[in-house]
């Protein structure tokens, strides 16, 4: 913690290309020991892509199994391990570290005109902790899996499950620290590293969103850490904390778990909202409608997010009056989210819209997130939640938010900043095609699940009643399309690294500090410290620039 005293490593012989963070050094060592936030961002990109593929493969397997009501591909034990693996990997190793780790790390220092994060070594340590935690999960996968579900409800996880709960818990504990350190770094960086003239209300909304995310990471993750630790103590040392046989309260575990895990939903979706703000502004060449309110909405979501955990527990035996309080607060959190959706939509008004891939993803996000958010209201409504709790309705809802929201935004962001990160353009035609395919595949996968849920099909069911089969087959068909659609970007983005056209410093003709440095940026981001004398998204400063 004591001041990062990292001397800039001597650069090797320059090549003909202007020097940038990618060609500054070529050794493996220069990547694994890098303290450059941009390289760490790319390390995260490699890590989370790997975990995304792993989690996706698990989903593909159990979606295949769910084609038929009987058990035919695998045993129940295997099925349970697969959905647990899918949940743990996608949440703790893809969604939570995804956008902050890749795009946040890469962009925040550039967007605020800094040379690096406040604590570059800590930043690298975050990545290593993330990978070590990931290794534990890989070990669990190889050794025989874990079958508690990603929610680890006691006393099943602490006493009854005889799978690798301990190793999983250790992995998540370690990854939690990665999250905490990332959050800490973001907070200090945004507070202390802004360049001259970069006031709080000149920050891009992506930075605001990640700042709000960092607050949740710092305040929420430690509670997850202690909860997981208590479960591990109970399991490893046989200390009974949540053991009902001693008078312990398994529902207390749920309270602690959701105290983190509900805000964690906002850890996953707030950065996505930040990305959407950037995309919509850039491709409608317009200032984000109601900038300040969108910024405050992020903070409001972060704060309110801590007060609604009980809506996961309406039927757990908590008092009806507690349920009412959590229900009202959950209703309130819809307001800032709704404001954001309307503001993004209205950003198009009097803009100059071009339909590049990132905007397609952003429009997809608007549609899917709207449905995800509205079905969230169903779940916040006490009378309906009693029926749909723990059914496929919930599964569909959070996939609309997490996949329809976060993954769409992540893909849009990757395409938008790909030229900045790699110096290459992606193939636009293929990218538009994949974006549409993702949208179609996604809806076919998850929309039937809303109907399944209201019909009463419980989640985490390996075998199910015959009447549910048609909808399950539709869902599996959609998942196949979705799975293939995800492979396209991975393929053509890798292809573009070598064959894509070289990108200019500002291929989208967008505003923002990240477009004012070269593509890819030099190691310390700017040749000289920028001084900001303009507002965020100032597209109308020079009306002559605008067409129409």
């Amino acid at each position, binding site marked *: *913690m*004591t*001041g*990062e*005293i*990292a*001397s*800039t490593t001597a650069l090797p012989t320059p090549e003909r290309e202007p020097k940038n963070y990618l060609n500054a050094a070529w050794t493996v060592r220069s990547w694994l020991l890098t303290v450059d936030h941009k390289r760490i961002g790319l390390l995260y990109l490699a890590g989370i892509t790997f975990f995304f593929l792993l989690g996706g493969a698990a989903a593909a397997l159990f979606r295949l199994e769910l084609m038929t009501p009987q058990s035919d591909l695998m045993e129940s034990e295997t099925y349970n391990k697969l959905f647990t693996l899918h949940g743990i990997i996608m949440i703790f190793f893809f969604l939570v570290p995804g956008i902050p780790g890749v795009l946040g790390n890469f962009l925040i220092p550039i967007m605020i005109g*800094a*040379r*690096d*994060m*406040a*604590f*570059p070594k*800590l930043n690298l340590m975050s990545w290593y902790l993330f990978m070590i935690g990931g290794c534990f999960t890989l070990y669990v996968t190889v050794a025989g899996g874990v079958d508690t579900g990603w929610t680890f409800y006691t006393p099943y996880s602490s006493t009854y499950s005889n799978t690798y709960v301990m190793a999983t818990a250790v992995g998540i504990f370690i990854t939690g620290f990665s999250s*905490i350190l990332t959050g*800490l*770094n973001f*907070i*200090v960086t945004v*507070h*202390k*590293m802004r360049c001259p003239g970069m006031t709080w209300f000149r920050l891009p909304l992506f930075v605001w969103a990640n700042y709000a995310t960092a607050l949740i990471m*710092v*305040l*929420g*993750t*430690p*509670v997850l*850490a*202690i*909860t997981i*630790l*208590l479960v591990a*103590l*109970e399991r490893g*040392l*046989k*200390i*009974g*904390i949540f*053991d009902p*046989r*001693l*008078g*312990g*309260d398994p529902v*207390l575990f749920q309270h*602690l778990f959701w*105290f983190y895990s509900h805000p964690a939903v906002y850890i996953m979706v707030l950065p996505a909202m930040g990305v959407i703000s950037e995309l919509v502004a850039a491709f409608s060449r317009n200032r984000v409608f109601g900038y300040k309110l969108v910024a405050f909405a992020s903070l409001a979501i972060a704060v309110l997010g801590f007060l609604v955990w009980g809506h996961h527990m309406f039927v757990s035996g908590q008092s009806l009056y507690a349920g009412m309080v959590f229900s009202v607060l959950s209703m309130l959190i819809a307001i800032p989210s709704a404001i954001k959706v309307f503001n993004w939509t209205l950003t198009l008004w009097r803009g100059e819209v071009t339909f590049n891939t990132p905007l397609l993803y952003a429009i997809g996000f608007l549609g899917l997130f709207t449905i995800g958010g509205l079905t969230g209201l169903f779940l916040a409504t006490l009378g309906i939640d009693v029926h749909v709790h723990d059914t496929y309705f919930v599964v569909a809802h959070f996939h609309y938010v997490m996949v329809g929201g976060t993954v769409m935004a992540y893909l849009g962001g990757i395409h938008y900043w790909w030229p900045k990160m790699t110096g290459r353009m992606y193939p636009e035609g293929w990218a538009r095609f994949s974006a549409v395919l993702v949208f179609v595949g996604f809806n076919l996968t998850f929309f039937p699940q809303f109907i399944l849920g209201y019909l009463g099909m419980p989640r985490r069911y390996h075998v199910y009643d015959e009447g549910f089969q048609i909808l399950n087959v539709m869902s599996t068909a959609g998942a196949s399309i979705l799975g293939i659609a995800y492979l396209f970007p991975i393929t053509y983005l890798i292809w573009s690294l070598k064959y894509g056209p070289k990108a200019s410093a500002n291929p989208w003709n967008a505003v923002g500090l990240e477009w004012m440095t070269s593509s890819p940026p030099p190691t*310390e981001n700017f040749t000289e*410290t920028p001084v900001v004398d303009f507002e965020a998204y100032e597209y109308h400063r020079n009306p002559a620039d605008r067409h129409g």
Partner: protein
Amino acid sequence: MSTTATLPTATAKRTPIVAHHFDDWTQQYDACVLGMWTFLVTEVMFFGGAIAVYMIYRWQYPMAFAYASQELSAPLGTFNTFILLTSSLTVALGVRYAHTGESRKVGWMLIATIALGAIFLGIKAYEYYTKFEHNLAPLLNLPFDYAGPDPGPTKIFFGLYFGMTGIHALHMIIGVVLMALYIPAAFRNEYRDGNSLGIEIIGLYWHFVDLVWIFLFPLLYLVDRSLAAPGI
């Protein structure tokens, strides 16, 4: 953040090395101190979770917790509190000497703090030992002989006792190791220029660990001693 009040830049005879990505020493100093405070906030939430669990069970099983608490040694706990508070004083003096540039005294203060920390941990270890002796450690399926009523919640109390004080002790061990790493620099006279950042950071951490104990001590040792006293 009272520590920022005595910013060392004005008195520094030699500018400390500023890391490449910071503009100047003030920025680096502020960033590090803010980073430490943020870290302590995460620690508050961490211990807060454990204390919340304790509160819930204490409310649910007041009698069991009151009786179980009698099994802990209040005199030893009180003595340890005294030790830890004194160690906070010595570390605060260390920070003070770092400000005034008396580097060797910083070293001695760190040694004193480590020594006090070691005494605390020693007494803690002795307390743990006696719990194991008297079969009051409900871990690893060890025998649990407890004469009072309701052994179930009592086990939860001792589980929380070992869990919370164990995590606290782990924090102390980390603190002791970190302080030990600063001692050579102190005796090499490296704090003579009022370059106190590192010492301030470790001081903040140590004060926090101290503060956690201030909460743990009454919560665990001083539960309703009158209520469970014999004869009432």
